[in-house]
């Protein structure tokens, strides 16, 4: 009974979403017609359909550029789609369905909701289409590989720089973006474990912001009030970092304090340029796109692919902002 209800609901919402997609205007040129499946742009060679978590945000634009570069170099055709925001699960499922209707040779997929996408993934598997998960994994054995940033290692890199800059002793606090998502917990743990194992620094507190900049500002403000001798703060994503920088500015506490952020965006880049932020970790979205297509082609050819493809990360600060591979990974 319940499942029937769920299915009807699902069908209705998918219908509604496709109606919306059909009537939506002004989406990018890679937007495909929901009615008759995707049609890859020009070129020849195997066809890889990519469904990401976003379309217009800079991070995903970089992913797409990397994917297109790989397609050009390795001789493949791709389509690249993504929902309007990272909460449009239904829209993404519809895009995955559309991608499958185009009979691709392989699919690249960054699941917004791992659970919701499993039926389609199983169907693709039954049709013999290899799936490459990217950016974040899917709770399933089906994808041939997961192409993503090793967030734990990336945060450990941030901790390494924290220890160097702050002098290896004293109190550190963490402004984390949440305690439930994989990125949230891995970045927190990667940082905390490194600090505890490799320095005499003490983690005094970890607070969560749910990626709310105002909340991040208020918790950082309280960190600084509670610990007049605080030596360092690490923020685990863009929103948390912006809040951290704002609170340090408000209280004029940058002297003697090391602040390290994560990800990119105009706020952090500007703050690094004028010394209000010591550095940040950036993922390599271009590389995520590139390696996704690479892995998809390997899977089409029946080659063995590693279970995890680590796409790397960079620590960037005032000294290397302009370097080519860093600049490529940063977006405003």
């Amino acid at each position: 009974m319940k499942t029937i209800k769920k299915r009807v609901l699902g069908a209705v919402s998918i219908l509604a979403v496709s109606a919306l997609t059909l009537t939506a205007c002004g989406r990018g040129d890679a937007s495909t017609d929901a009615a008759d499946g995707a049609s890859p742009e020009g070129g020849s060679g195997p066809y890889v359909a990519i469904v990401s978590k976003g379309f217009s945000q800079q991070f995903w634009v970089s992913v797409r550029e990397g994917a297109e570069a790989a397609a050009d170099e390795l001789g493949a055709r791709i389509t690249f789609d993504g929902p309007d925001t990272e909460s449009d699960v239904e829209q993404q499922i519809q895009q995955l369905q559309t991608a499958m209707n185009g009979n691709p040779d392989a699919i690249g997929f960054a699941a917004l909701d791992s659970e919701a996408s499993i039926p389609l993934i199983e169907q693709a598997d039954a049709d013999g289409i290899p799936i490459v998960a990217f950016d974040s994994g899917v709770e399933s054995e089906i994808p041939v590989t997961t192409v993503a940033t090793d967030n734990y290692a990336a945060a450990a890199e941030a901790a390494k720089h924290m220890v160097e800059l702050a002098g290896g002793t004293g109190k550190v606090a963490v402004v984390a973006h949440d305690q439930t998502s994989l990125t949230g917990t891995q970045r927190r743990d990667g940082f905390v474990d490194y600090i505890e194992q490799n320095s005499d620094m003490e983690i005094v507190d970890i607070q969560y912001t749910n990626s709310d900049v105002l909340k991040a500002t208020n918790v950082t403000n309280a960190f600084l009030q509670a610990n007049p001798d605080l030596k360092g703060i690490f923020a685990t994503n863009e929103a948390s970092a912006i809040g951290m920088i704002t609170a340090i500015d408000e209280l004029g506490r940058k002297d003697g304090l090391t602040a390290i952020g994560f990800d990119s965006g105009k706020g952090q880049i500007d703050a690094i340029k004028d010394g209000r932020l010591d550095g940040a970790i950036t993922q390599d979205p271009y590389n995520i796109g590139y390696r996704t297509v690479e892995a998809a082609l390997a899977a089409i050819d029946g080659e063995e692919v590693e279970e995890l493809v680590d796409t790397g990360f960079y620590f960037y600060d005032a000294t290397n902002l302009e370097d080519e591979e860093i600049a490529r990974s940063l977006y405003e």
Partner: protein
Amino acid sequence: MTTAPTEQQTAEVVTEDAPGRQMRWQQFMIVGALVVLFVIFTIASPNFLTVSNVGGILLAASVTGILALGTSFVIATGGIDLSVGTTMTLVSVMLAVFGTSNYLGLPFPVAIVLALAFGALLGLLVGFLVSHLGIPPFIATLAMMMATQGASLIITGSTPQYFTEVDGFRNLATGQLIPKLPNAVLIFLVLAVVAWFLMNKTLIGRYAVSIGSNEEATKVSGVDTRRWKLYIYLTAFVFTAIAGIVMASRLNSAQPALGVGYELEAIAAVVIGGTSLAGGRASIIGTVVGATLMATLNNGLQILGIAQEWQRIAVAVVIIIAVWADTVRRRRSGEA
């Protein structure tokens, strides 16, 4: 049609001006709770009762507090406003649209006025939906919440917009006209006085409470309740819009993804302060203390190093105790 208010007794109106014993009791209790919290945290941590930390608490309370002031008027009528958080965000986004060179780049004072006017316009729209189309406030403001959230993300392409090019805008919230007191707190306190005056000394407050107490009786006594509801939602949204400007100034940016959840914080502050969700009773002083109480709890528990999950539970307990104690007291004294 007629604007002349009749002087008939429409329904029992309970505001600070004519408090009745229950209102005084509720206010006494919540102020007492705030004092007790301050004493406990001061004993527990040397870093709590410092000028700078109290400033931080008030600063943390100011945006939620300004939202709660506006929401008090809506709740007084027995309505609810779920759209405050995302509307506040959209106003900050519109400020970027009017005032930064990425978009229209108008002179900044003009941009601020236009952004406020935009917020007021949304208030008229919601007021119209509620009063003239008869859509329940819960539904009308839920729809507005979704629409404003979507609009913020679309307009900005989901990217934060910064006001770094606007010299001195940050000082609007973080400057200190009065030494040691961030301007955002000053704005909050001034708005609290304005809200108190509106609620207790003008027809807007009187009719808001009277509509919440008994809408039919208010109508029968010759009050054009439709029109007044429109004014009440307009008033609430002006407060929300000001919160949007203050937040934009403090963060020096418009953050399109922010906002969901603030409506519940605002409602919690209002309820802790003794304004009745059923309408008919409102206390601006209570709302101000309620917002401060929540910020104090969060700050104090964090300074003591107590995990955040517990902060939520602590606020929950305060809400339940505040409302329950009030109910018990009213039942004892045989009031409705």
